[in-house]
């Protein structure tokens, strides 16, 4: 009997030795004359258990982890191929509480399949959304996405259906679908996991977007820090072309959609949509003035849908199960699910896809298990380097767009970076300004100059040089950046700074009582 053994090819799993484990399993199997089918799947997203090896048994997949190459021979000895007990046994994967408690829609297949196997994709409900879309008029596809309540998952949370509708109604000889895969926010990796673990779901989502708005060419603008994703996406696109799911006459429908991966070059600003378009056009990634919106004048001046990976990857399940079904998940105006990412100093870091509305505390403790260092959690930065630092007193806030915005925080791309009580919040504030200065495109003054001055002012506050005066100066500078910057980089860099200052004044050398917002 041939047993199927799964070892992830996700880059986090590889970063902890998955390639070596896969090789060791192949070698050991050959040595023992065991015939196995070794599949390199995506990750289930429980990174503290990676490399997590699974075997298929009649009861379901059984997991072992974290596996080191030197454990492999022992695993064979313990008959792991038949799901038997070993000290690394985790039981049935689907019953691991972290996994079982999730509501996986966008991530439904990730970890189950061989990412580049189209047959696996089809066997696990893939391309059912496209099949439905091909039977609909473009406006009906847009309507379905509008009904779902899907909002841009990159962070801005703009309603996807409205954006698509604008592009649909913009007359042009050429339109484009651009996937923003420049996932540069620290603490986020859901885009990467989709591209490495289920590239076809992104390809299908982009193809549906193309049908919906009448675009025949798509580009995935992928950050250069994700070389494995590039390899896997290109492999999947090639398979899609060969099997008639991409290119001319998709599945005999007469519809056309071509897709190409373009590699970024290490500029954080290119995650801003207009800067991304400039970069795709072969220019410096300088932010554009808006209007015109990219939906009217986008790539090469043509109407363009620019969506994040998760937004596009959520489209197939919406077209498969219906927008109505999708919007039943979530709270308030935050509909559906969000793949949250637990990162930094957290015991059980990984990917948690659940409906909006869970509290920060539930995510940090019920899923995350507290800090990895075992010390108290002091602050969580939510939504990337431009997101606010949230103190313990706000951990009971529900994770939805509006609830966080009401507290001057933001959900962004759903990443939570956990810090324990050893963190120096003044240093984190200074770093936010330094990062903004390094990554500023330089087009507008508040961001280009403000970030550099901001870092200097924070240094002076920490050094105690005219502290009260410098604090006022910092707040004024933050106001200028908030109101005067052209895009979110300069316009939001003050969030981590002000949240650190307001919630953790003592780290800046300021008495709690003296810290009143001007």
């Amino acid at each position: 009997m041939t047993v199927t053994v799964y070892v992830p090819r996700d880059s986090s799993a590889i970063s902890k030795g998955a390639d070596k484990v896969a090789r060791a399993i192949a070698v050991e199997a050959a040595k023992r004359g065991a015939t196995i089918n070794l599949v390199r799947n995506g990750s289930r997203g429980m990174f503290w258990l990676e490399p997590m090896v699974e075997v298929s048994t009649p009861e379901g997949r059984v997991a072992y982890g974290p596996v080191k190459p030197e454990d492999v021979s022992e695993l064979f000895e313990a008959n792991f191929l038949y799901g038997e007990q070993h000290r690394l046994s985790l039981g049935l994967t689907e019953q691991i509480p972290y996994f079982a408690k999730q509501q996986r829609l966008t991530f439904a297949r990730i970890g189950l399949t061989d990412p580049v196997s189209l047959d696996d994709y089809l066997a696990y409900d893939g391309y059912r959304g496209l099949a439905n879309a091909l039977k609909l008029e473009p406006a009906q596809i847009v309507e379905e996405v509008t009904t779902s309540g899907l909002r841009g998952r990159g962070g801005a949370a703009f309603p996807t259906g409205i954006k698509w509708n604008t592009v649909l109604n913009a007359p042009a000889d050429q339109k484009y679908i651009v996937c923003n895969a420049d996932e540069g926010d620290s603490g986020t990796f859901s885009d990467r996991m989709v591209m490495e673990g289920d590239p076809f779901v992104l390809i299908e989502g982009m193809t549906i977007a193309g049908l919906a708005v009448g675009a025949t060419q798509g580009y995935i603008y992928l950050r250069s820090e994700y070389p494995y994703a590039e390899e896997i996406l290109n492999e999947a696109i090639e398979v899609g072309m060969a099997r008639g799911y991409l290119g001319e006459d998709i599945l005999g429908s007469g519809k056309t959609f071509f897709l190409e991966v373009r590699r970024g070059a290490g500029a954080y600003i290119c995650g801003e949509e207009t800067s991304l378009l400039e970069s795709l056009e072969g220019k410096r990634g300088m932010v554009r003035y808006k209007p015109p919106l990219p939906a009217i004048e986008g790539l090469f001046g043509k109407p363009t849908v620019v969506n994040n990976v998760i937004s596009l990857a959520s489209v197939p399940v919406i077209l498969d199960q219906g927008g109505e079904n999708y919007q039943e998940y979530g709270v308030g105006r935050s509909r559906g699910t969000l793949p949250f990412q637990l990162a930094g100093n957290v015991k059980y870091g990984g990917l948690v896809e659940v409906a909006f509305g869970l509290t920060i505390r539930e995510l940090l403790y019920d899923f995350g298990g507290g800090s990895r260092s075992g010390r108290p959690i002091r602050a969580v930065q939510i939504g990337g380097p431009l997101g606010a630092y949230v103190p313990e007193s706000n951990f009971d806030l529900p994770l939805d767009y509006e609830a966080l915005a009401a507290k001057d925080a933001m959900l962004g791309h759903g990443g939570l970076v956990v810090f324990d009580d050893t963190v120096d919040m003044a240093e984190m504030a200074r770093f936010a300004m330094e990062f903004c200065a390094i990554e500023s495109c330089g087009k507008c003054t508040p961001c280009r100059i403000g970030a550099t001055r901001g870092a200097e002012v924070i240094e002076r506050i920490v050094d105690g040089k005219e502290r009260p005066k410098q604090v006022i100066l910092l707040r004024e500078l933050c106001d200028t950046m908030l109101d005067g910057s052209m895009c979110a980089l300069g316009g939001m860099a003050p969030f981590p700074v002000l949240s650190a200052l307001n919630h953790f004044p003592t780290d800046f050398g300021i008495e709690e009582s003296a810290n009143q917002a001007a």
Partner: protein
Amino acid sequence: MNIDQADWDRDKVLGIVSALQDMPGALLPIFHGIQDELGYVPEDSIPLIAEALNLSRAEVHGTLTFYHDFRTTPPGRHALQICRAEACQAMGVNDLIKHAKKKLGVDFHETTADGAISFDEVFCLGNCACSPSIMVNGEVVGEVSSESFDEIVDSLRAR
């Protein structure tokens, strides 16, 4: 005169340029193509690229130097990057960076004296649940300690 001139294969660069120049927005793919092949984009390849794309040299130079990834000098034999982003800071990467600079004897954006390792900072490798992370010749390594960092550096130097 530029003493580095002709240290690179002009025909190879011309081949890359002519293969890619008709793509829409070809400039970044061309830079990547050249850097993937040579390890850097030579300053004096700029006129060739400018001519092929009908751009000014200033435009090509301006774009090349905008992006952190592109370098205009030959790299060391190995590329090593440390992630400085928040998740890695939460797991003590700033101490690792101090250690790394001492171990390598260089700062960011420099190459070790023996020409073995080009050392750079990076902002997020998307490995934020396994921090701190580094990238070694395009491969991500997670949960790096000073000890495992030293082992990696020693093995790179031996290669």
